[in-house]
């Protein structure tokens, strides 16, 4: 009975790490995006296990849904899946990157091994992680940051429109000249 959570965690963690590695190593951008969707879905299941159902559903809809659809849309738009594998200009940089990332991993492992895990606080399972409790916290303690995110999204939206509206302006010129 006590082994079941560990097996669940081991399987989920293995799939998450494997899909992450496959995302990084895949030469086709579309495969990378689909592996990332697998990774996000598995992490959403981990969130469910951790008692965060609302965050898990948000992960599925926003990350695996909206953001990855945007990614795949842009890959298809640019023909990114057909791009030839570029030749590496800095060959030494790849091996250096692997060494540095392994050093980062070793450092993180050392830090986690040093610190003892703090005692777990068992929250009320009926209330913990429910959308109502989360909303209550979001609209009281975190009201200002929440309002600020709306400003952030507005600025991002305006930025995207400005960045991609160049083509539209160019296309309108010949039509105006045709009319005169």
């Amino acid at each position, binding site marked *: 009975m006590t082994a079941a*959570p*560990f097996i669940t965690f081991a399987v989920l*963690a293995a799939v*998450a790490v494997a899909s*992450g*590695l496959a*995302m*990084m190593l895949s030469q086709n*951008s579309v495969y*990378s*995006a689909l592996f*990332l969707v697998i*990774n996000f879905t598995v*992490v959403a299941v*981990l*969130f469910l296990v*951790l008692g*965060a159902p*609302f965050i898990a559903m*948000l*992960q599925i809809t*926003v*990350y695996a849904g909206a*953001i990855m659809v*945007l*990614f795949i849309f842009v*890959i298809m*738009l*640019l023909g*990114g899946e057909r*791009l030839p594998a*570029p030749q590496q200009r800095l060959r030494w940089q*790849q091996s250096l*990157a*692997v060494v540095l*990332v392994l050093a*980062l*991993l070793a450092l*993180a492992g050392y830090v*986690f091994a040093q610190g003892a*895990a703090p005692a*777990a*606080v068992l929250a009320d399972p009926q209330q*913990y*992680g429910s959308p109502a409790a*989360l909303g209550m*916290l*979001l609209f009281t*303690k975190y009201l200002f*940051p929440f309002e600020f*995110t709306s400003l*952030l*999204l507005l*600025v*991002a*939206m305006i*930025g995207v429109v400005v*960045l*991609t509206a160049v*083509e539209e302006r160019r296309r309108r010129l010949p039509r105006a000249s045709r009319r005169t």
Partner: protein
Amino acid sequence: MIPVNYYLALSAVLFCIGALGVLVRRNALVIFMSIELMLNAANVAFVAFSRQFGHLDGQIMVLFVLTVAAAEVAVGLAMIVAIFRVRASINVDELNQLRG
């Protein structure tokens, strides 16, 4: 219950995979996906600690990280599209116009 250290280890491994992807790959889209993976790894740590301490604050942080990630992806992909129009390439090695 699984100790929080296991989740932190998973978070660290995912973060390192993302960092490796940013450093090794040359396709701007894959670099963006690797950044998403790193943000996701941070989310795992947030939710694990939230569970450990019985506070919901960590889950609220994940909400904000999600918002920032959405804004970042939208602006970043728009920049990639704009760059692709001018250079017809999304290889970051070829974007060296600012080299001093």
